[in-house]
């Protein structure tokens, strides 16, 4: 897993609009070496005149095989994400390099309790971790807290609901619009939310936090304030403020 090869050609196999701003892309990458749950890749686009742009994307799929799943959220003024969300179609080609990152990963040999906390598209590497947990029939205690603007903005909502069982709990935070009858009023994630809806310090969980930089900063700070040791908190910051 240590060798990062050069750029690999990928063909878009499927492109599915899953939220008002986002798509899931399934790439077929014949030379893909497989990846651990939680890793990311670099994706490169090349224009006809040779101009290139590269961005990082987390990988929602894990394990062996040459099918690589991404979920991309469109940033209105972006260069790459609007192309991936609006323009690219099955049959189109692009390039990827990876898998990258050996730190924000979960291996099925891990047995300790795990708390996953995602904001927006930050769910992508955590979905792959949740999938790996299920695929391994791991009994490690998992709990996920997913913060989204509104119900329709959630990626993988029904799949995640389907994972809920004795060893996987799922909690939601809605920042702008909560579903009818949802107990919590819409608003940004707070210390009280984290206290109420995540594994306590006493469980000594390993915590994975992923999302826009501002979200990760806020959540990681609350976790430290609550007494989680900094070395038990793994973060992946997607950018933005």
């Amino acid at each position, binding site marked *: 897993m240590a060798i990062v090869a050069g750029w690999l050609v990928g063909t878009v196999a499927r492109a599915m609009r899953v939220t008002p701003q986002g798509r899931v892309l399934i790439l077929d990458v014949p030379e893909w070496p497989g990846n651990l749950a939680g890793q990311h890749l670099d994706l490169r686009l090349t224009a006809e005149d040779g101009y290139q742009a590269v961005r990082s994307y987390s990988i929602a799929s894990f394990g062996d095989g040459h099918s690589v799943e991404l979920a991309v959220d469109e940033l209105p003024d972006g260069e790459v994400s609007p192309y991936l969300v609006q323009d690219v179609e099955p049959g189109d080609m692009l390039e990827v390099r990876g898998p990258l990152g050996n730190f924000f990963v979960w291996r099925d040999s891990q047995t300790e309790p795990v708390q996953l906390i995602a904001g927006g598209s930050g769910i992508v590497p955590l979905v792959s971790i949740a999938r790996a947990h299920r695929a391994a029939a791991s009994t490690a205690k998992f709990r996920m807290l997913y913060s989204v603007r509104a119900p329709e903005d959630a990626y993988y909502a029904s799949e995640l609901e389907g994972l809920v069982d004795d060893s996987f709990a799922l909690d939601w935070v809605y920042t702008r619009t909560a579903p009818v009858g949802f107990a919590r009023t819409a608003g940004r994630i707070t210390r009280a939310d984290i206290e109420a809806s995540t594994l306590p310090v006493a469980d000594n969980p390993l915590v994975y936090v992923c999302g826009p930089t501002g979200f990760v900063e806020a959540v990681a700070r609350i976790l430290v304030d609550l007494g989680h040791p900094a*070395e038990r908190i793994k*973060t992946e910051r997607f950018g933005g403020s």
Partner: protein
Amino acid sequence: MAVFSRGFGARRRESDPELPPGQYLTEDFPVLSAGPTPRIDTADWSFSITTESGAVTTWSWDELMALPIEDVHTDIHCVTRWSKLGTSWRGVSLDTLFADIDTSDAYTMIESYGGYTTNVPLEDLQGGKAWIAFEFDGEPLDPEHGGPARLLVPHLYFWKSAKWVHGIRMHSDDDPGFWEQNGYNMYGDPWKEQRYW
């Protein structure tokens, strides 16, 4: 030869010849760190250099501030592909801090509050190439960006510019630091695109 991505040309930005290969320009200041942001009060802050003989030279915040402070204008390049041009920093040159240090080791391990480490050859820290920086754009450095002080070694990818810097330990060999053990290049020259293993 790269494959073309159909229709991407319509979305492309202008390319910038000042940028190393594979980088794009940003006006923001993105953040790459593996864990929570440590918060260190300058009253508790210290910086030390430890040599192979075990000798430790330590500076408190006030002692650092009493040293000659330099203005640094430089481009910075992050391995996650963003670059910023013409950023302004203030800090103390590593030449000043190493002036009275007696070592024959050629490598260093930079150590940070929070436990992160990164390896840099000593010669890359000397000769006006590296600083302990505590001001960015005229303001005290935000904790998110490594405040109260970070290493600034801008000719290498920015993960080498360790945030929340706490000390430097001399090493006889080029041992990998935290990011280097987790997939990043040992040296990290952006102009040679030394991103990963």
